């Protein structure tokens, strides 16, 4: 207990320094348990000798402690121990985790990860989703080295149709085949459709493999618990 607790009151000088009631009141609970350092306890005792209000508070604390100590003992119900031992012996105490608590978060996060991979790789492989529909993007594409003609104004560039020889990931950009640059919508052509089928098929296989692995680890965990 540090001495900073102890506030001294010089105005009340009766045989030297005496503590203030407020400071004493805070110390009384510990004074009751004789857990104060001897010097501090002596100061509290000095104060108590002259202050009936604090004596009163100490008496209240003492009384409360007495009543708490006098509370009747409570025994466990007669069948309590037998129940406990039965629980322990029947291994019921292995608090069983509901099965879904194990599988749902794992499978869901695996599915989410696969979906992310699918979507991101789709955009990567078929970038015309991203490339078009925004004028700045179009300028970017058209202003690639070789396409840039300095004497044309930006407006003219924006208005311009994509060149016939534009080639994105092997897709010929004939205007009829790839009206992307004009309408900002991607065609679902055969290549993309096939890609979606294959990649989602592979994802499902990976997901099933993950499910199998989780099932295996779940069984192993159960086994460990009951050993």
């Amino acid at each position, binding site marked *: 207990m540090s001495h900073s607790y102890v506030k001294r009151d010089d105005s009340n000088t009766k045989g030297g320094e005496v503590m203030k009631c407020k400071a004493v009141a805070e110390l009384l609970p510990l004074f009751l*348990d004789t857990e104060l350092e001897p010097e501090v306890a002596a100061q509290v005792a000095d104060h108590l000798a002259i202050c009936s209000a604090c004596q009163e508070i100490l008496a209240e604390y003492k009384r409360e402690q007495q009543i708490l100590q006098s*509370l009747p*003992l409570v025994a466990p119900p007669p069948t309590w121990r037998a129940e406990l*031992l039965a629980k*322990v012996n029947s291994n019921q*105490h292995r608090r069983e985790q509901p099965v879904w608590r194990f599988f749902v978060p794992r499978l869901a996060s695996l599915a989410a990860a696969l979906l992310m991979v699918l979507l991101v790789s789709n955009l990567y492989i078929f970038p015309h989703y991203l490339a078009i529909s925004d004028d700045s993007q179009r300028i970017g594409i058209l202003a690639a080295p070789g396409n840039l003609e300095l004497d044309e104004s930006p407006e003219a560039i924006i208005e311009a149709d994509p060149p016939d020889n534009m080639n994105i990931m092997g897709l010929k950009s004939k205007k009829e085949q790839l009206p992307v640059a004009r309408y900002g919508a991607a065609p679902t052509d055969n290549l993309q459709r096939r890609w979606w089928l294959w990649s989602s098929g592979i994802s499902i296989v990976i997901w099933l493999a993950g499910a199998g692995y989780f099932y295996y680890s779940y069984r192993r965990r159960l086994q460990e618990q009951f050993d």
Partner: protein
Amino acid sequence: MDGEQRRAFLRHIIIAPKGSPVAQGGVVVQLTGLTDENLVEQFLQGNKAAFEEIVIRYEQKVYQLAYRLSNNRDDASDLAQEAFIKVYRYLDQWRGQAAFSTWLYRIVTNTFLDEVRKRKRRPLVAMSLDATIPTEDGEIIREFPSDDADPEQEYLQRELQQVLQAALAGLAPDYRAVLTLRDIQGHTYEEIAEITELNLGTVKSRISRARAALRKKLLETEQYESLLRQTR
């Protein structure tokens, strides 16, 4: 020998699992005379009867603590059982840094505080924890005799106890825990520090604040003062 005697007798005898050191040595150990440390050792060597002995030794104190913390019998039963089940599971993790009893009470208090936290998140269930205290005289095994055998005084005394118990139940769980450990279970400040895993300074300030809070609660209860005046 009737059933009870027989069970008491059988408690002294180890049923040693195959291959355990006890079985190999063919030693019969009297569990009742062992220290806690030796009992734990017995248990870890595979003598499951040692666990029952531990339960018998501590059920009273653990149940009492659980009851004062949770304030009703059902919660107390569950809490005490859960604590002992944890002991059963994690006994190998007790390395004797603290006394066994300290470790045990720590499990009870922590289990209780965890439960309180869990219930705070799902407040619907919290009802039973703060419910008023039932008075079931049937299972109270010992009453401290009051100074005078006056039945009216005894009645008032019991009323007073109930008021105090209600006030204690109204305190914050942390305060209730330290006050219960201090005044009802009679632990020293050092023991409380070990049980709650707080440092001594924190225990001291927490107990002071708990006492002050309890006193404030009691001063708010009108009954209390009149009861005090009548019992004096």
